């Protein structure tokens, strides 16, 4: 480094970008880590990923190109938006036989008063099967990044970020949490009857769990929601979704009758699979929200 002493943020970022930052020491190539230590020389010299000259040229051209590309994109998108049919007008191309059937026969075909639930959990349930696994995938990716299983067993110092002893927070939380969780359960269970469903209800319950952890610490929650039970709950919910929908798709594709019926629309136990699926989705969403929070705060669930 030429100006070794006064390293500005810019220089720091430049080194990071060019791969000359300390990270490369951490990125010591494991393949060359021979036990005799003969590779010590190889890891000490930082890797030249790009010649300096190229970096300079790159830096001059890159912002220019990016600005041009952005300008072109903006022009194209504006032109396209101007050409779009007016929003929400009757007779738009998107008002066609697809939407008409959802609105007109959604109730009789799926049994769900809430047409949105009928569409996402019956007409287009395969998309939602994928979507609930997207959440799970995201959680697993964060697990890979942040989970600390071995070594650091002791609780990290959360004194600065957790207000366990805060009496205002504690009192408010004691009042609010039961209401939040109950409301979440209500939203999930009524997903086929009114606005709501697994995704929104699960998010509400997840928020309740996070508030609990914030106010009273994780110890209370861990009595029923430790890492093991957490994974079992996710497994049960997602397997239930996969298996029941696999059965339903199989029957639908092969022209068989399912054991699920639409029931009497408007009753709580109606709309076939939609209610159980809403519960499964809600459980997954609540778990994901709580899990992400816990992982980001303390590196485990």
């Amino acid at each position, binding site marked *: 480094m030429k100006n070794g002493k006064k390293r500005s943020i810019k220089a720091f970022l430049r080194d990071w970008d060019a*791969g000359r930052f300390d990270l*490369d020491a951490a990125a010591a190539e494991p393949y060359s880590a021979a036990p005799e230590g003969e590779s010590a020389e190889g890891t000490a010299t930082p890797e030249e990923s790009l010649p300096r000259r190229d970096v300079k040229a790159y830096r001059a051209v890159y912002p220019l190109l990016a600005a041009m590309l952005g300008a072109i994109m903006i022009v194209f998108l504006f032109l396209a938006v101007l050409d779009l049919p007016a929003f929400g007008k009757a007779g738009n191309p998107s008002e066609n036989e697809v939407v008409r059937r959802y609105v007109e026969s959604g109730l009789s075909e799926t049994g769900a008063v809430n047409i949105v639930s009928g569409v996402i959990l019956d007409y287009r349930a395969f998309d939602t099967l994928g979507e609930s696994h997207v959440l799970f995938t995201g959680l697993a990716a964060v697990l890979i990044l942040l989970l600390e299983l071995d070594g650091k067993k002791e609780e990290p110092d959360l004194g600065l970020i957790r207000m366990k002893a805060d009496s205002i927070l504690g009192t408010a939380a004691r009042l609010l949490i039961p209401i939040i969780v109950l409301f979440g359960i209500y939203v999930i269970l009524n997903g086929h009857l009114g606005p709501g469903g697994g995704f929104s209800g699960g998010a509400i319950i997840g928020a309740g769990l996070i508030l609990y952890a914030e106010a009273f610490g994780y110890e209370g929650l861990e009595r029923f929601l430790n890492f093991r039970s957490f994974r079992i709950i996710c497994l049960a919910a997602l397997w239930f979704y996969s298996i029941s929908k696999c059965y339903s798709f199989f029957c639908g*594709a092969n022209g068989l009758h399912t054991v699920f019926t639409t029931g009497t629309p408007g009753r709580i136990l109606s709309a076939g699979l939609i209610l159980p699926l809403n519960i499964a989705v809600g459980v997954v969403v609540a778990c994901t929200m709580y899990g992400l929070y816990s992982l980001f705060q303390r590196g485990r669930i």
Partner: protein
Amino acid sequence: MAFSVNFPLFSIVLCFMSAVLAALISGRAARAVTLALCALTAAGALILMFFGIRTGAATEYLMGHFPRPWGNELRFGILEPLLVLLFSLVMLLTLLGGRKQLELDLEKSKSNLYYMMCDLVLASLIALSYTNDIFTGYVFLEICTIAACGLLMIRQIGRTTLAATRYMIFSLIGSGLFLLGIVFLYAVTGQLLMPDLKAAIVSLWANGSYRTVLITGISLVSIGLAVKSGLFPFHFWMPDTYGYATPSSGGILSGLVSKGYIFLLIKLVLSVFTEDVFYKSGLSNVLYVLGAAGIIVGSIGALMEKDVFRMVAYSSAAQIGYIFMGIGISPDLGMLAAVFHIMTHALTKPMLFLASAQLSQAAGGKKRENWLGAAHFNRAAGAAFGFGTLSMIGIPLTMGFVSKYRFALAAFEKSELIVPTLVVLAASTILNAMYFIRVLVVLYSSPAEDKPRVRIRDQIPFAVSAALLILMNLAAGTAAKPLVGLISRGLGLM
């Protein structure tokens, strides 16, 4: 209806279930589950392919009780099962062959998460190949993106985390463009299922209304998928991403994940955008030019690289360029060449990554100068690397030769493309030969010092998987006609 038409549904659900199960079991068990899963899906796809060949028609499979345009649907003929077969076989062999490196690179307590991500990638590749619904395509694109980031991040060294972040940013830009394109198309058609979307686009195009929206939507979808698969000028994340990941991940990401995106694009071009709109609006020319530029720029990048991993990764950028060039040439012969090249690259690149990892270990470094005579210390890896490079250059008897021959053949369909295509093919072949043969020469010259030898019997999994990949490559390279016939029948059914 034969029972085998249910296999796509079963394989997707099984992939999901084993991914969720992998969270609860040990790394070894998760590994066994994943390998069995790959074998099962491969077998299912094989049976389904024979079903498609026998009936000679594509099957539309309802996902639920509602036909299109209301419910989700899958659709498969010959080509879709063929690609799923390829994807699951290559994933099986990549995981088998990279076992040693995986044990080195994975934290023991997290190795089950790695196989979970593999299951999820497989699920999304299968769904991307079979789907008949553009929005289902988007959902599984998301799963594929996140799982691919997981596969990268699992090797927790600084450089990989950085590369994964970069990969994620590019990939998410691609997904965002794709989603925006779907929104535009939906606004003027009101359809998401591919056949209905196609009908709507064709009628709108015929009476000339909403032309700007249509073109913008179609280009956003195509460019989104191109960004995700790393077409020039969006290929700069490649060297770091593929070069610093654990070799199995590098192989899966370059050989399979990017191919899943490209196959979705091919499917959309053939069965939604139609020849008229896509090829006559000039969009295909954009892909052609970017593809050709990508070939040259990727090859030059590889030529200037000292780190062999990064060199192999740069060569991936060039191969993606070939595929897009094929898509840009024409919807029949050009597309055929592109699909054939997808197979060539999927069978070759993972093997190159695995062999490079073995050789680096034997040589004690990833740089070319470390590799002096490394093939003498690890003969199996040397042979695999040597064969892989020959196939990449396009020596006759390998698949690489057949795909380059097919690209040249496709160019003769359009008189104005003959000269540029042939020039690009010739230049890239020379560049490929320059950077690959240089490594081969270093690899097989006499070593400066004696290093411990790795015998074949110490690395049977790698040797077996490399041998199988080489055999498949040779079989398809020497007797290319049946495979080409199969692909062209499959393209006809789409």
